[in-house]
């Protein structure tokens, strides 16, 4: 067992900034599933998702010293890096770029209906995953759709408006309503 096992995330980042690869190994063990799952869901290709995951943790290693706790929790910072990395790769690969946005939204509904968690999913993660899916399932379909296109597809709000034939203002207000609903329903972490 690592001597860093009980250290909180910000302390691990400090150690990583000082060059401690044991801290990096532990940080990877804590977040590998979350980063990889997100990348896989965005990219739809296990090989590409692994490359994105590797790039994310390399970036964390290089930028550990620049993390600012007053700006975001470590998890939010990491997930933001992971999402940008995956979406950038998605855009470069254009692997799924020809798909209809409406099809993506349908895929999302399938995911909500069939979470297909791995047997090894950490118990705490399983509960928050269940809560997130439940909160998303409560949203009106139109809000869920824009949220999906923005978050997992990396579409700008004008791209979403164009794809769905909706006014720009409606897209913005749906995104806000959806996030406020989630904020109300989900515990702070």
């Amino acid at each position, binding site marked *: 067992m690592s001597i860093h096992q009980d250290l909180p995330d910000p302390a691990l980042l400090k150690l990583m900034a000082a*060059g401690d690869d044991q801290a990096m190994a532990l940080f990877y063990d804590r977040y590998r599933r979350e980063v990889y799952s997100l990348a896989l869901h965005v990219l739809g290709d296990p090989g590409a998702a692994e490359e994105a995951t590797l790039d994310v943790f390399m970036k964390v290693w290089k930028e550990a010293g620049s993390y600012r706790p007053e700006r975001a929790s470590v998890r939010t910072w990491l997930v933001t890096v992971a*999402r940008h990395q995956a979406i950038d790769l998605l855009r470069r690969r254009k692997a799924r770029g020809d798909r209809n946005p409406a099809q993506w939204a349908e895929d999302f509904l399938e995911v909500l209906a069939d979470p297909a968690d791995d047997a090894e999913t950490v118990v705490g993660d399983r509960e928050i995953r269940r809560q997130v899916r439940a909160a998303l399932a409560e949203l009106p379909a139109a809000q869920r759709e824009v949220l999906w296109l923005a978050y997992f597809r990396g579409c700008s709000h004008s791209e979403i408006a164009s794809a769905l034939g909706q006014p720009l203002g409606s897209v913005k207000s749906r995104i806000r309503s959806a996030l406020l609903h989630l904020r109300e329903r989900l515990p702070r972490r």
Partner: protein
Amino acid sequence: METETMERHHPTEALAALALGCLDTEEDAEVRAHVEGCATCRAELRALEETGALLAYAAPDAAPSEGLRARLLAGLPRRRSYAWFERLLERWPRLVPVTAVSAVALAAILGTASLVIPLRGGRTQELLATVQLVRLQATPRMPAASGVILVPPDESGGVLVVAALEELDRSLQYQLWLIENGRRTSGGTFSVAAGGAGRVVIASTRPLTDFDAFGITIEPFGGSPAPTGEKVLGGKLVL
């Protein structure tokens, strides 16, 4: 000074889109500029970003292959903050490579005040003059062992260089202890190459100058929460 007035317009709808990174470029810049100067919107944006990051949990859970961890750890680039140490080694031929330095040679180098004298350039001399050195003394357990801790000028950590330590059984490792008023904090574990030499970046969340002494013990592989094994090297930091 930041001013908050009733008339001030807060871009509330755009903040949610900004939190998900889906504003178009021009509006993104405008809203970010507003957020920079508005504490209310900064707090709201942070809360929305924390909520938005929970969306990642909607992705079906999956695990990467076992080999990815090893690839990551093998590919980690050396810390930029230790570029000073790399420069030092490049300009100090007698320490390159460390594994080629005998215990006697290292002791000779470390044990004299001439450490900063036989250098090629003024820049290196200047660099070395700012690095604090802590010489570690051997104990009877390994009388030939020697070591030094180099504390960099920016106090961001340090580097431990050792020579003539015994190669340990695979179930054991050396562990560095950072000591402050008798309280010991782990500075990391390490093994040595054939010949007993090693160079280790010290893991510490605090400047090494906060500590008054350092010690190295033999511990179970992976380290211990507190020293349990025999001490092989130790030294005090004199400021």
